[in-house]
């Protein structure tokens, strides 16, 4: 069962276009969404949520049309990259405004988390960015959604809050009916928790699949500087060179090994390296 099914999605913003022929998010798993700034992550998320109109294509969320069916929206929780609350409202007002619309709202959980994260009852404009993010998360999480769409959920959070938030997400995934779409630059969040990985590049799909399998298609190659020649450079998607050697990413590990042999070191990239090194010379 797919929590989200995308077909032939296109969204045009003048010169910039997001185009995804096919993307499915499996229910019961965490799918990480990564990509450089401007790669189209936020546009994709907004298209899925139905808060912007699509130029073309279909998106099914939890088996239906999210813009047409309020029952689906009841089951979706969203944390926006920039919190969208009106600055003059207070924490408590936001809570009161949202809560009545969600029949599965868990007030006990809200109070518990509010106390745990020490969220004060103040005007939104008086809260720090991190506190605003925590409030967004609480609003998205305490309505007990089946699908959590998170855009930079741990940005601006101190390490201890981040750790606890991730803990809540892990517990959330114990229910196989729950799904998370996790878009972030903080790839460290994804290294442990994410099952599937989707990468966007200039509005198109760069890679997708089980996270470990995706990373397995690539290798980080490290070796002495002299081995980075115009010939070998052809093997690499991106590289970096210093006086002490070079580091590069290849998506053709066998060819690299054939050409460079044992004079260099090979290992799997991290998600972070995958993003950094996919763009040519990274210096």
């Amino acid at each position, binding site marked *: 069962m797919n929590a989200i099914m995308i077909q032939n999605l296109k969204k045009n913003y003048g010169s910039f276009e997001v185009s995804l022929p096919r993307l499915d998010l499996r229910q019961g798993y965490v799918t990480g969404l990564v990509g450089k700034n401007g790669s189209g992550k936020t546009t994709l998320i907004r298209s899925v949520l139905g808060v912007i109109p699509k130029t073309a294509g279909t998106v099914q969320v939890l088996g239906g049309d999210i813009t047409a069916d309020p029952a689906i929206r009841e089951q979706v929780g969203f944390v926006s990259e920039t919190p969208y609350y009106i600055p003059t409202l207070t924490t408590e007002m936001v809570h009161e405004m949202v809560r009545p619309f969600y029949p599965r709202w868990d007030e006990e959980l809200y109070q518990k988390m509010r106390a745990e994260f020490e969220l004060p009852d103040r005007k939104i404009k008086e809260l720090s960015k991190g506190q605003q993010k925590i409030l967004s998360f609480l609003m998205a999480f305490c309505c007990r959604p089946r699908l959590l769409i998170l855009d930079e959920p741990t940005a601006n959070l101190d390490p201890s809050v981040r750790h606890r938030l991730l803990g809540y997400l892990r517990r959330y995934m114990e229910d*196989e009916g729950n799904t998370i779409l996790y878009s972030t630059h903080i790839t460290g969040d994804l290294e442990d928790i994410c*099952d*599937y990985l989707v990468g966007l590049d200039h509005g198109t799909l760069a890679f997708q699949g089980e996270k470990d399998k995706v990373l397995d298609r690539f290798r980080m190659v490290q070796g002495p500087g002299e081995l980075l020649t115009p010939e070998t450079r052809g093997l690499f998607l991106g590289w970096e060179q210093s006086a002490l050697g070079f580091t590069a990413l290849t998506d053709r590990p066998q060819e690299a090994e054939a050409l460079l042999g044992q004079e260099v070191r090979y290992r799997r990239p991290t998600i972070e390296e995958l993003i950094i090194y996919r763009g040519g010379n990274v210096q």
Partner: protein
Amino acid sequence: MTILIDPTSATPLYEQIVQQIQRQILSGTLPQGELLPGVRTLAADLSVSIITTRRAYEELERDGYIKTLPGRGSIVSIENREHLLELHRQEMRGWLERAVSAAKAAGVSREEIIEQISRLYDQAGEEK
């Protein structure tokens, strides 16, 4: 059940889980018939992805250490404990042969290599 994983180790995470559970089953810490935590609970507790724990359980089942009953979960179920122990013995012998050959090439004496093995054995003794 205690499982401690090291994210910085070169060994893949699922492999670490497999090894530790194998060890505990063979040593009897995890007795026959013991119900193991579900893949999702295990993933949450270990802070790894669900696919990782699922893979670990699949491998353990393939190698004959556990059985997964639909709707119930995974239980420890060794068909042939002796056979599995023998497999590990063979693995050990293989590694020892390579170690001995490397030791000889490096001019390491018999006493030295025995001392090294003893030390490593004691260190590894903490994990069960």
